[in-house]
């Protein structure tokens, strides 16, 4: 339960940081989408037995939608799709011996 609360708080703060702080740095050639990057990293390094990626993809998409002009759900669909794609690739094609996943 604690893990889930931390994740909610983490994605909320990341979304705030993305939409209120990073937007000022538009003089850089590109700005990273920290919400999606965090969610991708969690999906990649997640323990295959856990389903944390499903929850994080929902959180990532949800907060992305809240603080953007997207209709509610658009970010969630993208985030879910990305997670599924990464999971499929990792399960079918990638074997990293000794790589510990949380």
């Amino acid at each position: 339960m604690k893990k889930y609360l931390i994740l909610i708080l983490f994605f909320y703060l990341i979304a705030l940081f993305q939409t209120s702080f990073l937007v000022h740095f538009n003089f850089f050639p590109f700005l990273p989408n920290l919400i999606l990057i965090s969610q991708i990293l969690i999906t990649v390094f997640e323990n295959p037995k856990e389903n944390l990626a499903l929850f994080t993809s929902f959180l990532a998409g949800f907060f992305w939608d809240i603080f953007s002009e997207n209709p509610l759900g658009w970010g969630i669909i993208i985030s879910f799709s990305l997670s599924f794609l990464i999971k499929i690739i990792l399960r079918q094609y990638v074997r990293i011996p000794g790589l510990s996943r949380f």
Partner: protein
Amino acid sequence: MRLSSKRKKTGIVVFSILLILIILNFFLIHKGIKNFFYVISSSPQRFLWKIGDKVSAFLEVILKAQDLQRENQELKLKVFGLLREKIEKDQLEKENQVLRKALEMGLEREFKLEIAQVLGKDISQDYLLINKGKKDGILEGLVVMTEQKVLVGNIEEVYQNFSKVKLISNKDSSLDVKVLEQDAEGLLRGKGNFKLSLELLPKEKEIDQGDLVLTTSLSGLYPKGLLVGEIEDIKKEDTQPFQTARVKAAFEIGQIEFLLIITDF
């Protein structure tokens, strides 16, 4: 079997979430949800916005310093280019004015002219350097005057792109002239340093101060009727067979910027 049931469960959860979201969007409930998050986030958002603004402004200055320097250099070059263009335009305008005056005086009907710009003045030796030379068809001996039909001198030396003009006040310069009012002919000699002396004037002619001196075509070297200057003072001695006079040149060396070279008359 267990795995398949787990997948089914996940699919149902995902499907349910999406269905809920569609319903939320359809009944515009999502606006209320967004509003709730905006209300609770407004304070940290304002704080982050301010910090982001300051940090980005600082970084932008650092990152763009090099660009600014380059931009500054480009602008400087542009300013120099524009200044050069302005100078060229001013010169063309002046040249145009000189030619217009020459046209007004009908000089183009009397002579074939070439306009030249004065580049240097060797005042001590009564020489001028002009920007027309051999490539412009300039020859030694050609007569040089101002647009007011005032005689200045003649071409002494011709280079490829430049020429040296010997002023009439040069010590080696002499020409036939006449005093307009008295119709008295004499020989004008340069005395150096812009001084002119009119010699061999017949004694019986009554020359007055202020009388105008013009060129004659006696020698064939100068066209007749060019203004040379005016009589400044006259020297008449009983022991001398001729009278002499000091002549003030009609041109002002400091004012001359453009000259007209008579290529044919």
